[in-house]
């Protein structure tokens, strides 16, 4: 695997985590738990955004593997 595809796979894992967190947040009955999940989800979203730029950048650097 090239660096680009590795980062890409990590990026998609992050996306799945984000979705999982928002799913759990909506399923739980407890307000405190919900807040914690939402907080974690926000952090994961910022990570996702930064990683997304990195993925595009890497794709530019490795056009042959695109």
């Amino acid at each position, binding site marked *: 695997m090239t*660096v680009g595809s*590795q*980062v890409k796979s*990590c990026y998609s*894992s*992050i996306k*799945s*985590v984000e979705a*999982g*967190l928002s799913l*759990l947040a909506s*399923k*739980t*009955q*407890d307000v*405190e*738990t919900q807040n*914690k*999940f939402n*907080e*974690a989800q926000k*952090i*994961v979203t*910022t*990570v996702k955004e*930064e*990683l997304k730029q*990195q993925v595009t950048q890497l794709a530019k650097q490795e056009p042959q593997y695109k």
Partner: protein
Amino acid sequence: MPEWFVIVLKSVILLIVLFFMTKWLGKKQISQLNIFEYISGIVLGGIVAIHTIEPERNIFYGIIAMFIWFIVPFAVEFIALKSKSFRNFTQGKSTVLIQDGKIMEENLKKEGYSTDDLLEKLRDNDIFLASDVEFAVLEPSGSLSVLPKKENQPLTAKDLGLKLAPEKEPQTVVMDGKVLLEPLANLSLNTNWLETELDKLNVSIENVFLAQADNNGQLTIDLYDDKLTVPQPTEAKLLLATLKKCQADLELFALETNNIQSKELYERNSRKLQHATELVQPYLK
């Protein structure tokens, strides 16, 4: 009227009266009854017994006697509920047997407790060394309540400073293959959700003997067919594992790259994920 019929009739009437009287007298367990309640219960039973097997007795006398034996304990209990001093008089007070780790010999004597009795009661509470006890009190019911010294108390999450997720009572959503709508509504879920979850586990609702959902919406089930194995809910654990994996991946990228800017980006995000993991870890178990 034939005599046997009188007996049947009286039995039924007295049975009904007795049922309601015991119901109104409250929900106390037999072991929690004090002597007074215990005796009045026996007398009530005795009156019923005498009046059912002797047809020539007047049933109204029986009912009057039962009423008296019912109303007095009822009144006593009612007044005791309102007044503390009356309660002390009727139900007795508790006696401190061990205070600040010291045995109160005077109180032992007053209650007619021998040292052996005290040791036996302590052993009942899993305490074999009297010096392990900080405080012990003899309740009016005759049981001994013991507070062990702090170092002998069981370790709790609070002692360790552990943060635990709050846990609410689980709801039973399927019983004997039938969906219970009210518990589902308590979790603000519906039958669609249940069907989806069961689909995920690949079982049909007819085969479900019991299904319970916790307040995080995790479903655990038991099937009629015990040969089938049911997967445990893994959603939360999987999520935690993925989160940790992503964090480790980012750390690895940071080590591998030579580009300073990228390195910084990976490290920063790895730290963020670490923080997020710590936030949700107690809840994903």
